[in-house]
C-alpha cells in the first residue's frame, strides 16, 4: 500500500472536512494535503512558490481534483499535470458535483483517470471515497519513482 500523501484540491471547507472524515472511517492513513485552488495545487506538485524545496519532494500517491475552483479551474490543473513529464503519470481522480456530459468528456480527454460524482448522501459519499482509496492506494500498482 502506498504511504505517500494524497493531494486534495478542493476550495469548499465542508467538502474537505467530509473527505477527511470519509478517509478516516475507511482507515486510509495517508496524509491528506489540502490546497484550495488550482495555482496552489501546481505549486505543490512542481515544488515551487510556497512549496519550493518541500520536504520529501516526492509526488503524492493520488490527486483528488475538484473542477470548479477559483482562479485556475480543475481542467487547467489537469492539463498542466498531463503536460509535464514529472507529473504525467500521476493518478488524478476528478471528484466533483457535475455530471454534465461536456465536463465528463473534457476531463477524460484531458487525461483524468476517473471521474466521480460526489453524492449528497453521506453514506454513499463515504462508500465512493473508500472505493477510490482502495483502488488507487491498495489495488493499483503505480509506475516506479
Amino acid at each position, binding site marked *: 500500500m502506498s504511504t505517500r500523501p494524497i493531494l486534495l484540491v478542493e476550495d*469548499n471547507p465542508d467538502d474537505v472536512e467530509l473527505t477527511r472524515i470519509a478517509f478516516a472511517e475507511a482507515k486510509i492513513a495517508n496524509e491528506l494535503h489540502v490546497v484550495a485552488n488550482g495555482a496552489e495545487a501546481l505549486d505543490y506538485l512542481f515544488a515551487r512558490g510556497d512549496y519550493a524545496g518541500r520536504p520529501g519532494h516526492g509526488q503524492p500517491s493520488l490527486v483528488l481534483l475538484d473542477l*470548479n475552483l477559483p482562479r485556475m479551474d480543475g481542467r487547467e490543473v489537469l492539463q498542466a499535470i498531463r503536460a509535464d513529464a514529472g507529473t504525467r503519470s500521476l493518478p488524478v481522480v476528478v471528484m466533483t458535483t*457535475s*455530471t454534465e456530459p461536456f465536463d465528463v468528456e473534457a476531463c477524460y480527454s484531458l487525461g483524468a483517470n476517473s471521474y466521480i460524482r*460526489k453524492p*449528497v448522501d*453521506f453514506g454513499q459519499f463515504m462508500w465512493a471515497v473508500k472505493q477510490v482509496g482502495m483502488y488507487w492506494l491498495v489495488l493499483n500498482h503505480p509506475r516506479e519513482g
Partner: protein
Amino acid sequence: MKQEHSSGQPLPGGASAGALAAADAATGDGGDLAARLRECEAELARVLQDQAHVSYGIAHDLRAPLRAIEGFATMLEQHSGESLDDTGRGYLARIRTAAVRMAGLIDALQALSRASHDHIDVVDVDASLAADWALVELRDADPGREVVAEVQHDIQVRADERQLKQLFDHLLHNAWKFSAGRDVVHIDISAEREGGRVRIHVRDQGSGFDPRHIERAFEPFQRVHGPDEGGGHGLGLAIAQRIAWRLGGDISVDTVPGEGSVFHVELPAATGAPAEP
C-alpha cells in the same frame, strides 16, 4: 444566418431572419418583420444561454451545501445521537430526509433542462427493450413490490435511445407510484403503427386521477396527488413530455379515478435509415 445556442442545436422554429428578409424583399413588405425576427432570435439565444447557466449553477452550487447539511447531520447523529432524546434524533432524521429529497429535486430540475437541450442521436430504437430496461431498474430499486408487467415485443421507433429510456423511466415510475395502494403493480405496454407514426400505450391499474387535471399533469411542479398518495417532485411527467416533443412526438393521457391511467406516446416510426446528423 441561422443562430445556434450553446449546445450546438439550431434554434427551434426553422425559419431564419435571412429567409424572411428574402420573402420581404420579394413581396415589398419592407424589412420590419425581418428585423423583428432577428431581434427575437437574438433574445431567444440570450434566454437559452441564461437558462444553461442557471441549470449549471443549480446543479453544482446548490448540491455542495446540501452535501454539507446531509453529511454533518449524519456525523452529529453518529457522534452525539446518544446524548439526544428521541425528539432530537427525530429532528436530525428530518434534516437528512429533506436534504436527500432536495438533491432528488435538483437532479430532476437538471433532467428537465437537459430534456430540451442535450445533444441527441436520433436512430432506429427498439422501444420494447428501452421499456424492459426501465422496468428492470424499477424492480431493482423496489424489490419488495409485486409487479405484473407485459411489454409488447418489437416496438420500433426513431428516437434518441437514452432519452427514450428516460421517458419510460418517468412514465413507469409514475405508474409505480400511483399503484402504491394496490397489492400488485400492473403495467401493460402495447403499441400500434399508423403510417409513419407509432403510438405506444403505457397502461397502469393504479389510482388514476380526476380527468379535469389532465392538462396540469404535464406542467412542471403541478402535482395531482399529495405526498401521501405517492406524489413526488412534480417534474417526471413534464420531463417525459419535453422528451416526447424533442423527439418529434407527443404525449397524452386518459385516466379514470380508481381504475388507472393510460399514457399515449406518439413517436416517429423506425425508418431503417442511418443516424440523422
